[in-house]
């Protein structure tokens, strides 16, 4: 069972790397999906560099979301920030419910075309899972543990860094994973405002009515999402083990 899972993952990785490095090898597979002798493989740019740009956008947005969501989560769980908890919850919720496409539409007039509006949209969209998980991670630390920490003379800072954050870390990491995986797909819309990314392939397919292109873009995004999801899960398991927790399949 385990061996099979590893084998499947390895196969997905090999497939992905071969496809973005030498897509023409796969031309015969996609040929039947094209009509009127249209190209079977995306030919308006390198799939490899588009994949890298796509990842760069997603990860920079995730980094920004993580920093903001975790800091905000810490702030609103301190006694001094407690009163901002409801407000920050609503704000972050709006960030998630406001459609990323609409964010793009609003952002373009302000910051112009390109990466910037996409980053903003992904940043806002990715905040919620990280923020909510930071909150539940920090508030789930046993009051008994905190009482003991305080009773032993740990300062507020020592309690946060030495007890609360380490105990919340697995849940925060799960939030980051969720956010990254969602945004790997969402990032494709960035191509509508001229951000470099895998959305270009899909949009080119839509414009030229070329199903092969659409599938190629979708396939790369899906493989990325699966592989990154798995990689982040492994990181979470390693962290959980180092924190003395039984590897939990439950964290989500």
């Amino acid at each position: 069972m385990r061996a099979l899972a590893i084998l499947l993952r390895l196969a997905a990785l090999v497939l992905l790397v071969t496809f973005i490095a030498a897509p023409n090898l796969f031309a015969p597979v996609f040929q039947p999906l094209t009509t009127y002798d249209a190209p079977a493989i995306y030919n308006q740019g390198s799939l490899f560099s588009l994949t890298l740009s796509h990842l760069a956008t997603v990860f920079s947005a995730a980094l920004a979301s993580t920093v903001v969501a975790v800091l905000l989560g810490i702030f609103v769980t301190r006694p001094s920030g407690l009163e901002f908890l409801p407000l920050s919850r609503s704000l972050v919720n709006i960030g998630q419910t406001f459609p990323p496409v609409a964010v793009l539409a609003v952002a373009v007039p302000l910051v112009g075309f390109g990466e910037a509006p996409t980053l903003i949209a992904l940043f806002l969209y990715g905040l919620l899972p990280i923020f909510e998980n930071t909150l539940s991670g920090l508030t789930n630390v046993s009051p008994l543990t905190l009482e003991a920490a305080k009773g032993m003379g740990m300062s507020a800072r020592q309690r946060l860094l030495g007890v609360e954050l380490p105990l919340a870390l697995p849940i925060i990491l799960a939030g980051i994973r969720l956010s990254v995986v969602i945004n790997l797909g969402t990032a494709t819309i960035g191509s509508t405002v001229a951000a470099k990314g895998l959305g270009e392939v899909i949009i080119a397919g839509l414009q030229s009515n070329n199903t092969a292109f659409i599938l190629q873009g979708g396939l790369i995004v899906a493989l990325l999402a699966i592989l990154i999801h798995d990689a982040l899960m492994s990181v979470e398991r390693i962290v959980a083990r180092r924190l003395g927790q039984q590897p939990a399949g439950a964290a989500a």
Partner: protein
Amino acid sequence: MIEIEHLTKRYGNTTVVDDVSLSIAKGTITVVVGTSGSGKSTLLRMINRLVEPSSGRVLIDGRDTMSIPEDALRHRIGYAIQGHGLFPHRTVAENIATVPRLLGWDQARIDSRVDELLRLFQLAPDEFARKYPQQLSGGQQQRVGVARALAAEPELLLMDEPFGALDPIIRGKAQEDLLAIQRRFGTTVILVTHDMEEAFHLGDKVAVMDRARLLQYGTPAEILVHPAEAYVERLVGTADRPFRLLSLSTVADALEPGPASGQPVDKGTSLRDALARMMWAGRTEMPVVDGAGAALGKVSVAGILAHGRQPA
């Protein structure tokens, strides 16, 4: 020397600790007993300032605790609670090392202290040091909790129902460990419990609280023999009183000259245990020996019973 002077805590209009004064000698064990909600934990937590007193003060060796920064104060006062509050993400050794590490001890000193404490609590360092709390039994977790509270050689140890969740056998064991360790380090201990048996067994002094007030503070014998109020009398259990009294004295106190036959009893055994053994064996006398096994005399049922009689 711990002096608690007119310590009071109010939440809004309710007073949960009402003008409590106690003076606790160095190196003794004081046990606080009383009904649920009578303010025992609050009293304890005012000593390490987890709760700020509304009025009154606590002096440790003559120094007002309010004049010591609270974290520094807590580094000097061990604190062990029911359910132990161990850090689940830290190993047993790391848990025990918490306060020494906060105090910046060097690694060698920390290691040797952790090792010493694990051995004292009969947790083989090789086996337990690297385990995580959730890999231990409840009794083992509790011992680690107490070891952690003792790690930085505190002069004062506060314990809030430390053995509350343990089964009777493990609890008895934990009490013996605590007594042995307390004697060895000379730590002053203030312990809260609901278990009167535990209070009389461990306490050099017992403090009885009811509805925020300190009703009586005295040696176990004083509390048994001269309960200050009806509540105290009820708490110590009228029916159990003679037996409790017997458990406070040892065979040495009822020693009589002369020989006796049968299994000898050690002079340190409590009179209650000695009586139980005589009843079980169907004897009226038993020989008494000292730690080395040398005969000292005998102890008799009549002699023991005299110790359980209401003093004139």
